[in-house]
């Protein structure tokens, strides 16, 4: 589905972040030795939701091209969180990396599309992407590679 308005894009991003947060909470239960990391990821995701929501509600004005700021294809960024029951930590981390890749991609393309139009929203998208890079390093270390 095409996402064109700021409202539906922000709602979609909230869905992605929440789904990923729930996934990390599940991983925390399955892999207690890394529970601290996974729970911190989940907490961060929910902070990102607030950050993006705040940026949107702060910057959206009647002079901003809110209804025409994006042209995202939501299917490209959708992901499932299914993990086999006997999945190892390395496999779980690999799955998480795939999810992170989808989310980062969504933010990054969103920055390109709305960069000239929505001011503070793409700026905050960039901040979220930058912060996520630390997480990628951590997840990679769990894969044992």
């Amino acid at each position, binding site marked *: 589905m095409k996402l*064109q308005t700021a409202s539906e894009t922000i709602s979609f991003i909230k869905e992605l972040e929440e789904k990923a947060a729930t996934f990390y909470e599940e991983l925390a239960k399955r892999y207690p030795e890394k529970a601290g990391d996974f729970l911190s990821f989940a907490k961060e995701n929910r902070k990102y939701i607030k950050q993006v929501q705040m940026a949107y*509600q702060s910057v959206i*004005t*009647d*002079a901003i*091209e*809110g*209804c*025409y700021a994006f042209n995202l294809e939501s299917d490209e960024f959708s992901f499932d969180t299914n993990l086999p029951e006997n999945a190892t930590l390395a496999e779980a981390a690999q799955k998480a990396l795939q999810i992170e890749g989808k989310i980062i991609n969504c933010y990054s393309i969103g920055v390109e599309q709305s960069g000239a*139009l929505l001011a503070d929203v793409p700026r905050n998208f960039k901040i979220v992407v930058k912060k996520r890079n630390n997480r990628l390093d951590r997840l990679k270390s769990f894969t044992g590679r």
Partner: protein
Amino acid sequence: MAVLEEPIKGVPMVKNYIGGEWVESKGEIIDVVNPVTCETIAKVGISTKEEIDAAVKAAQEAYPDWRRTPPVTRARYLFRLRELLEENFEEISRIQTQEHGKTIDESRGETRRGIENVEVACGIPTLMMGDSSEDVASGIDEYLIRQPLGVFGIIGPFNFPFMIPLWSAPYAVAAGNTVIIKPSSEVPNSQAKLAELVEEAGFPPGVWNVVNGGRTVVNGMLDHPQIEGITFVGSTPTMENVIYPRCGATGKRVIAQGGASNCLVIMPDCNVKATIPSLMTSFFGNAGQRCLAGQNLIIVGDDNKFYNSFVEQVTEAAKKIRVGNGLDESIQMGPVRDAEKKQRIMNYIEIGLKEGATLRLDGRKPKIEGDYPDTCFLGPTIFENVTPDMTIFKEEIFGPTMGIMRAKDLDEAIQMCNDNPFHNGHAIFTSNGKYARKFQYEVISGNVGINIGIVAPMAFYPFSGMKGSFMGVLHTQGKEAIRFFTESKVCIQRWF
């Protein structure tokens, strides 16, 4: 995407808020209709002369204590109101969409703009400071203090039911005045919600009043000797023929903001990719129902290749606009406010055709997303071959239409802007600083856009406007609003 939940449930009666009490009007009761579904979502009274008189009395009685309330304390009421507005941000926005039809993005934008005015007015202790000069003559000092005046009337339009009264009201009460707001009877719910929050914020009774209705209320405000001034936003004929002369006749100060037929000038060197979304918002946002909307697109130069390519891209973008219920997050354009307004716009389309313009895109039978009656819906309409002598250039259409014109050079484009009877928000799109500066310097327009399609000033700048778009001297918003809502008193003193 799912349709967001409607905040107005059942069919509530929208009451007046007078002297801190919620009072049902004794006047005729009319329906408030959602233009998407055509269902009645509320009822509102058309208040009587007695009711506006009662509001003036309440505001007059509240004034002496309120003006003596220190500005820092008055600011604290506004800070509380500001917090409540943030807490209720989403509900306020959805009310606007439900009663007006605009998209949820547009409503949230309107809510934000309204809140920003409250935020600016919170600075009243600084904003209201006067001036002083020591030793204007030896041993004699002179200083200026700003004092409130009394009761002000605020007359709001239908197109921004929440925001526009906030261009005035926060500044008026921050400065120590009391106010009576008359919202458009077509969209009274937003101001009712705002008044609920004013009450919750603890403003003393009578400081902030809301009287719903129509001409009787407006006439009652204009004629009332105890109303010191009026701010009005609406059509130019009402501004010119009713508001401004009547305020003059009764000695009221006035800010009167009227209509527009804004011109957006396209230079061949503009950033086309970034310009197109700006044009979509400018011409078709809020279904074209804003005094800063683009109405005329002037493409400069004799390069037919650029012209054809640009018009093609604009048309393709306009064709893709999703029209429907603004509470559906994927919708980019809602309906116009009512069937009468739709008919008025359709009449202008007919006039345009009769006068020789041609239709590049006909929005009279739009594709509507979702199962809704087409009563109030129009799609984007694009005219070509529009000339400055045509009615669709000279009059305000106030709908989702774009009239494409050509100018041989920037000088001619600026002349076309300046020949337009309205001068509210003309804009230029260019990558050339010299063109931009020339445009800014020479164009007659209260608000000037450079690569901005909707030239809406932030709350700390005045909402300007010139000639057919404005009557008065000072404007709403920011420091000019403070000057409007205060009297300058100059004191000269010496001590023997």
